[in-house]
């Protein structure tokens, strides 16, 4: 990624997100300290941070684009490129490994026809291995955006893929938390 981001490409961000960025800048003790939450605002709307997003934050936060790029690439959840529609992130750390993460990943590879780290040719699914997701006693588990699926079995994974192919994100184990 080049620190000079004058690509001329259109960058569209909703007024709601722009207003939220102004709010965060006012709430945080220094402008620069609002960088992470502002990146999240852009991520949440667009799924990645395009060059225009960097320009916007250079302007709003008065930090250099080099600094923004540095932060953008340091944290694994920030993305500087568009992503697959569904990024399936399977935990391959120790507890999930003990509980069967490897056979589960093999199952996903077979079902999706891609290897770990790859995206399906239609750009619909990406399969990634990630470190501990904080669900160790509920493993094996995988994360899809803000949804965390736990206690996974091959059958459960098949059901998940089927729903996603229909364009439905099934209820995750942690979605209980979103209800009142």
């Amino acid at each position, binding site marked *: 990624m080049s620190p000079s981001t004058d690509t001329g490409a259109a960058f569209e961000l909703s007024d709601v997100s722009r207003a939220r960025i102004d709010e965060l800048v006012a*709430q*945080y*003790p*220094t402008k*620069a*300290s*609002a*960088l*992470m*939450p502002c*990146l*999240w605002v852009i991520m949440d709307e667009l799924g990645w941070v395009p060059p225009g997003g960097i320009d916007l934050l250079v302007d709003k*936060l008065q*930090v250099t684009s080099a*600094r923004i790029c*540095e*932060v953008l690439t*340091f*944290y*694994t*959840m*920030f993305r500087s490129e568009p992503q697959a529609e569904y990024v399936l992130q399977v935990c*391959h*750390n*120790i*507890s999930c*490994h*003990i*509980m069967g993460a490897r056979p589960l990943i093999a199952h996903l590879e077979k079902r999706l026809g891609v290897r770990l780290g790859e995206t399906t040719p239609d750009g619909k699914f990406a399969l990634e291995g990630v*470190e*501990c*997701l*904080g*669900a*160790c*006693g*509920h*493993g094996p588990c995988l*994360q899809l*955006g*803000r*949804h*965390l699926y736990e206690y996974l079995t091959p059958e459960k994974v098949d059901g998940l893929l089927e729903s996603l192919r229909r364009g439905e994100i099934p209820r995750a184990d*942690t*979605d*209980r*938390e*979103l209800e*009142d």
Partner: protein
Amino acid sequence: MTPNDYTMLSARFGRSDGHKLAVYEAEGGYRALRKVLQDGMSREEVREEVKGAGLRGRGGAGFPTGVKWGFVPPDADEIYFFVNADESEPGTFKDRYLLDYDPHQTIEGTIISCFAVKAKLAFIYIRGEFGWLVDRVQKAVDEAYAAGYLGKDILGSGYDLEMIVHKGAGAYICGEETGLINSVTGRKGQPSIKPPFPAVQGFLDKPTIVNNVESVASVPFIINEGAAAYKAFGTEKSCGTKLFSVSGPVKRPGVYEIPLGLPFREFFNDWLGGMAEGEKLKAVIVGGSSVPVLPAEEIMNTNLDYESLGEAGTMLGSGGMIVIPESCDMVELIQVLMHFYFDESCGQCTPCREGTGWLHRIVKRLRGGGGTPEDLDLLEHVCDGMAGLTICPLADAAVMPMRSFLDKFRPEFEALIQETAAAAPTSRWPRGEQE
């Protein structure tokens, strides 16, 4: 003793309504905050109570909480407080339960802790992967503001405190306290050299206290019931109760609140129900992936407290207990862990950046069938060049499991190398190719 006897921290775990302000208040919530702010406890009194309770930091290092608070220079006027909810240590998932089932307990504990150190702004730093939890906690913080527990002139006491829920973005190293602070300043989450310690010079170069979620969540009980009531649980030096998050093939994995000093044997047999059907216990990593592993026969005779675990050659750490069954290949497991530390090294220190990579590659080579007996010495040698020689303890966090796996399960490494030798009886570099 049974799992339901201890509910200082876990009273609302597993319930569907415990996160609501009204429920928390009906069950005695925010009584401790009223006691401090309305009945006029002084900052010193709060600090002394927490110090007297013997509460030790639950994030891993076990440093006494009240003592840490005392390091803030008395004349400082701009002080920050960070609640560490980065919870990324493999095997650890207890803070998630605290914030999920009972966010107000942590918020109340944070407000009291902030008052004790005279902080004006608190951050709750939640790892980015817990997206749903960020919303949950934000909602609870909004409720607390609306009820007058946060903001200006809290409960008419004249004390002002703002609270920001900050979402991480995927980096284990942001759990290290200076990495966490740097992350919130809008930088990479790379740790800083200590001293100066954050309590003296931290966020924006101002005094800053970083405490684990469980540490601050313990504060309301201590204020309500007093230091003596807290100390009634646990052992002389390991006071109170502690959450353990248990993973692996036991009958009942999950998060448990235990009085410190509980014998592992009792915890394992009676609380966890022993191993799942068809599994046999091989080893346990008791305090998160960064502490030394203990074989079954050693952990079975150990009690769960800071001193006993120290004497047994390991650490209580975060309480992330990983139960390893007989069916697991220890060389494979250490490869998984070395991959993790290599992945998560922030790259500032040569011994850590290169060392974690070497450890990972050597173990990988062993498993790939390219190992020699000298490789085991080489692993030890790399560990020697890492431990204690870096800015933060991540390098040590990789060395501790590596060394202990080698030390306690050496025959498995040796057997693997012998298999390799048997499969390829000639030298690894056939004559003529040797450089």
